[in-house]
């Protein structure tokens, strides 16, 4: 159903004024509450489809002729896009446009520097270090989420930060804890804690969305780090398996997250905590009974457990959030 507009309401308001039901001022006041005109859903749908087809056409045209486009034009186009996205983001925020416009613009502003670096690498056939590439990108967007207050740039910022850890460890062969894999797991676990704690600072700026993202990504990183700590496929003779302890720690951590989320009224933390609890229960089950059951029985029982977990977690989450 179409939303009422000034155009559609005007005949009715005029009739009410003429019928002395409302005054002229009241009529004008009512009309002022509605937008001047609205676009029909059909027009909107066809405009979106048309716009997407145009964008797809431009992408196909550019990619088909990529090699014949002069490199200065490629770089110029990228810099143009970067400038346009940053300016559109700042102007959109300042002039209070629809929130999606500055958000998408800032997302482009955060990702385009990486594409620019990859483009220069492609133009000059550079095969340098992945760590240097991501580090340069991270530095170039270091302050962007804190100046734009855009949640999507903060997520991109977090992704680039978390990508730095495995790249640095594998490229420089840092094996502070028995091997590189375990070093990555421990560093991820620690980084997750730091990120989740530091994200509380967003509360001071009144940015709950960023805080929720920081907490969630921090919880995922720490859980992932602990979960993978003892997942090495090759075990030397001296190896004492501690995966039960590590997975137990993930369980306790996420139970804590659900409790904190419940106490502090933070729904994303409750949801994520429950999902992780479900994953860890299923993982424990598969690892413990994996060697005892036939493949068919394992699939059947794990599938049944998964269905039970989904329903239980959904019910628990609902009751906790209420």
């Amino acid at each position, binding site marked *: 159903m179409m939303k009422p507009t000034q155009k559609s309401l005007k005949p009715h308001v005029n009739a009410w004024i003429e019928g002395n039901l409302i005054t002229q001022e009241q009529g004008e006041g009512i009309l002022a509450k509605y937008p001047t005109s609205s676009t029909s859903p059909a027009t909107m749908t066809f405009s979106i489809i048309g716009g997407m087809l145009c964008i797809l056409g431009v992408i196909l045209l550019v990619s088909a002729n990529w090699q014949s486009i002069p490199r200065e034009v490629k770089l110029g186009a990228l810099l143009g896009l970067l400038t346009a996205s940053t300016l559109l983001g700042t102007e959109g925020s300042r002039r209070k446009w629809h929130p999606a416009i500055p958000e998408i613009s800032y997302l482009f502003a955060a990702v385009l520097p990486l594409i620019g670096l990859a483009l220069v690498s492609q133009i000059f056939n*550079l095969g340098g270090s992945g760590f240097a590439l991501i580090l340069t990108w991270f530095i170039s967007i270091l302050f962007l989420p804190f100046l734009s207050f855009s949640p999507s740039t903060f997520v991109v910022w977090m992704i680039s930060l978390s990508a730095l850890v495995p790249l640095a460890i594998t*490229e420089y*062969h840092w094996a502070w804890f028995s091997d590189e894999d375990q070093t990555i797991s421990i560093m991820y676990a620690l980084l997750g804690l730091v990120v989740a704690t530091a994200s509380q600072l967003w509360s001071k700026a009144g940015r709950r969305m960023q805080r929720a993202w920081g907490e969630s990504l921090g919880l995922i990183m720490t859980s992932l780090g602990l979960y993978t700590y003892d997942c090495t496929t090759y075990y030397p003779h001296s190896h004492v398996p501690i995966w039960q302890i590590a997975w137990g720690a993930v369980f306790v951590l996420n139970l804590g997250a659900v409790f904190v989320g419940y106490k502090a009224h933070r729904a994303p933390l409750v949801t994520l905590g429950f999902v992780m609890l479900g994953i860890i229960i299923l993982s424990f089950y598969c690892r413990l009974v994996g060697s005892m059951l036939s493949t068919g029985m394992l699939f059947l029982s794990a599938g049944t457990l998964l269905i039970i977990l989904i329903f239980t977690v959904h019910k628990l989450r609902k009751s906790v959030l209420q």
Partner: protein
Amino acid sequence: MKTWLLRIILMLQILGLVSLYAYHLSIEKTGKTYLLKAEPVDPRDLLSGDYVALQYAISTLPDRFDISGFNIPIYVTLQPTGTLLEIGDVTEAPPTGNVPYLKGRAFGRQISYGIERYYVPEGKGKHVPGDLYAEIVIQPGGTAQLKKLYSAGKPWPR
């Protein structure tokens, strides 16, 4: 939100990318060029498209040099043999004198010079000829850049 700060960041990003482009362009235009025998393999980079991964005769450390460890910065002096180049000497400090040398990193017996990939148009990297020669540019300081590939005396891919 500080709009002017965001604009400064934008200017720095543009300046950074343009400087990076100008730096590599200057290496390509002003550096001295050399020819290396190359051996291809054919992977694909998700971010940047098709490229040919290359291995050179100078990519393997000869047995006479005793360098061990990973990611060790080294300087490889190049010795001309005909129109091509091979490893003359390997040192951990830049060589003196007017000899061409490359800056690389040793990973065990393998040396990486940052010229191990050559981007090609999509699909062109499937049939790579065996007789590949790489034209490289060397800047003072030993930084190398891969300029062009040749096969049968002509630029490749055609």
